């Protein structure tokens, strides 16, 4: 299990580091919101999921997409705007999707997928499925009205949704305290009748175990659950770099998160040989994905007018 978690964590970290490295070449003409520092939340929770479970996320979606099993080549190609991308080059970094892996969507408008997740869960419930939906979103998203409306609906209909608030303490450059009268997001879930708890976003094993326990309850009895997971973003809000120079947060604030970086921590717990083998495999896979993206063609011009509507030839879209 540790090896599996490490592989996932290391792989996500390395993919995003490669994105950051490639970014100045201007080949990735897509706004990237890196998860570096936050990977353990997606990895820990998704490690407890089945392939038939479904996740919804945000524009900061690389980690979630990969942790849930989204195709790596298709993701990198999507960032490059290539026809082989997971959204065929039409969505970019903010709209990753892999329906086969259960990554149902990631939106650039904050909060939107929270409601989509609840609706998906409603459908699962009508089908007597024991699959669950996990909705990932940020602390900022919890301020949008759709968040509260959705909590009420999920509670009312006892929907199989696990809400995972990745609380990194900031919305862009504004701290939670500057935005929330009572900065306690879990308390709001409780106010709507949803059991809620606070978890440590660096404790990947703890997250996995807690998710497993919660999900087995949800699969048996239904009903939503809420995790507020404390985590930290190490890079800038959007783009490849660091941003402590902007002055909105002190570098010292990041220190404990760096010290407890789950990628390093887990690495230290693995036998060296196993760790190196994983890392080598991942490096090869990542290099291949970037090579695949670079070599792939851009979409044909005609693609501009396809996929607008689902129908033969999308003829209706073209006037």
């Amino acid at each position, binding site marked *: 299990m540790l090896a599996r978690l490490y592989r996932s964590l290391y792989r996500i970290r390395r993919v995003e580091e490669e994105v950051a490295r490639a970014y100045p070449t201007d080949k990735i003409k897509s706004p990237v919101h890196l998860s570096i520092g936050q990977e353990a939340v997606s990895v820990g929770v998704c490690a407890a999921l089945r392939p038939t479970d*479904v996740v*919804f996320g945000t524009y900061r979606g690389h980690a979630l997409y990969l942790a849930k099993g989204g195709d790596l080549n298709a993701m990198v190609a999507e960032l490059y705007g290539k026809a082989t*991308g*997971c*959204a*065929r*080059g*039409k*969505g970019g970094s903010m*709209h990753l*999707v*892999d*329906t086969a892996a259960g990554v*149902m*969507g990631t*939106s650039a*408008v904050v909060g*939107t*997928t*929270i*409601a*989509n*997740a*609840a*609706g*998906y*869960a*409603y*459908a*699962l*419930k*009508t089908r007597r499925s024991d699959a669950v939906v996990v909705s990932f979103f940020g602390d900022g998203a919890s301020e949008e*009205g*759709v968040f509260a*409306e*959705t909590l*009420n*609906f999920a509670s*009312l209909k006892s929907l199989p949704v696990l809400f995972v608030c990745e609380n990194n303490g900031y919305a862009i450059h504004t701290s939670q305290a500057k935005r929330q009268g009572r900065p306690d997001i879990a308390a709001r879930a409780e106010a709507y009748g949803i059991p809620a708890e606070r978890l440590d976003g660096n404790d990947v094993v703890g997250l996995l175990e807690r998710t497993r326990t919660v999900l087995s309850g949800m699969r048996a009895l239904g009903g939503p659950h809420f995790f507020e997971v404390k985590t930290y973003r190490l890079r800038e809000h959007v783009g490849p770099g660091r941003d402590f120079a902007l002055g909105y947060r002190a570098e010292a604030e990041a220190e404990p998160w760096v010290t407890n970086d789950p990628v390093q921590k887990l690495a230290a717990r693995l036998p060296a040989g196993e760790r190196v083998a994983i890392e080598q495999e991942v490096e090869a896979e990542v290099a291949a994905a970037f090579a695949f993206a670079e070599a792939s063609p851009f979409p044909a011009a005609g693609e501009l007018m*396809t*996929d*607008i*509507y*689902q*129908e033969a030839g999308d003829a*209706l*879209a073209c006037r």
Partner: protein
Amino acid sequence: MPSPAVKPPRPAPKTDRTLSFVDAVREAAELEMARDPNVIVFGLDVDDPKAIQGTTRGLPERFGPERCFGTPLSEDAMTGAAIGMALAGLRPVHVHIRMDFLLLAMNQLLNVAAKSRYMYGGRVNVPLVVRAMIGKSWGQGAQHSQGLHGMFMHVPGIKVVAPATPYDAKGCLAAAVRDDNPVLYVEHRLLHFTKGPVPEAAYTVEPGKARVTRRGADVTLVGISSMQVECLRAAAYLADVGIEAEVIDPIWLSPLDMDTICESVERTGRLIVVDTAWTNCGAAAEITAQVAERLQGIRDLRLKRMGFAPTTCPTAPNLEDLFYPNARTVAAAARDLVEDVKTGWLPAERADLKSIEFKGPF
């Protein structure tokens, strides 16, 4: 310009069975729910004693509360949830008793539903129907009277339909439910009271074709939603003074059958588009602009748009009357267009052509 391969416009329905618009909507929903277990109907108050003017009557009893249910007052999240259901393969019909409330759901409708298929590169569909009703009269006023279909025509990725007869109400709802894309289904509350021929079996009225509801050579009247009824009445007033109006019901507003409209205007040389909405940047602007573009250099035209007065809807009954076009003001405008002069004519009201009356509270 109209291509030679244009499909003929839709024929009028033939059947002896008469149904109200309300019952036609209800019947379509019931048939579709029976046909496909993925179809569900929900929205504020769909399962209450008034059953959305009767359009959802009996559905909870027949299909159970999981497939037909009322919701909290949460238009934004309920629209988002509908999208999630659609992504999971359900075919939700989300009902709004007033179109005005869609303004709370624009983000999910236009940023998510309309764009999902494209921005995910065709990997997903959103087979969602949104039923929304336009209110009118009895002082419903500023916030309960808007026809906002033009805003949805503006954005690619969502279809828009506004049936004007019970026949089309049934067929268009079935077509919308079976469509794999989001569809805004616009109902006018005054049309709910009208009756017309409706075959018993299921059928669809698909996107892409308008209906010529009256033939005439002098002027083309395009009437949208409830204004279709006013246009047909206007044609009767015009016939009294020897003017033969051709009347067209576009039915589907997006995609829009401009071929049928342009073919007609090319013959008549005159067009009035009458909408139950503001004309500015609305459906009437679009139709007028397309006719002007497509018939430029082909023939000289006379054009006019009619719709809500460019103001907020007032509640005083006398002002409310002035806010809307009606059969007589349409007829008057058409005659002026045909005779190319301000005649000052306004037909005296004919009892048999009175506009629908409505008594409140709503």
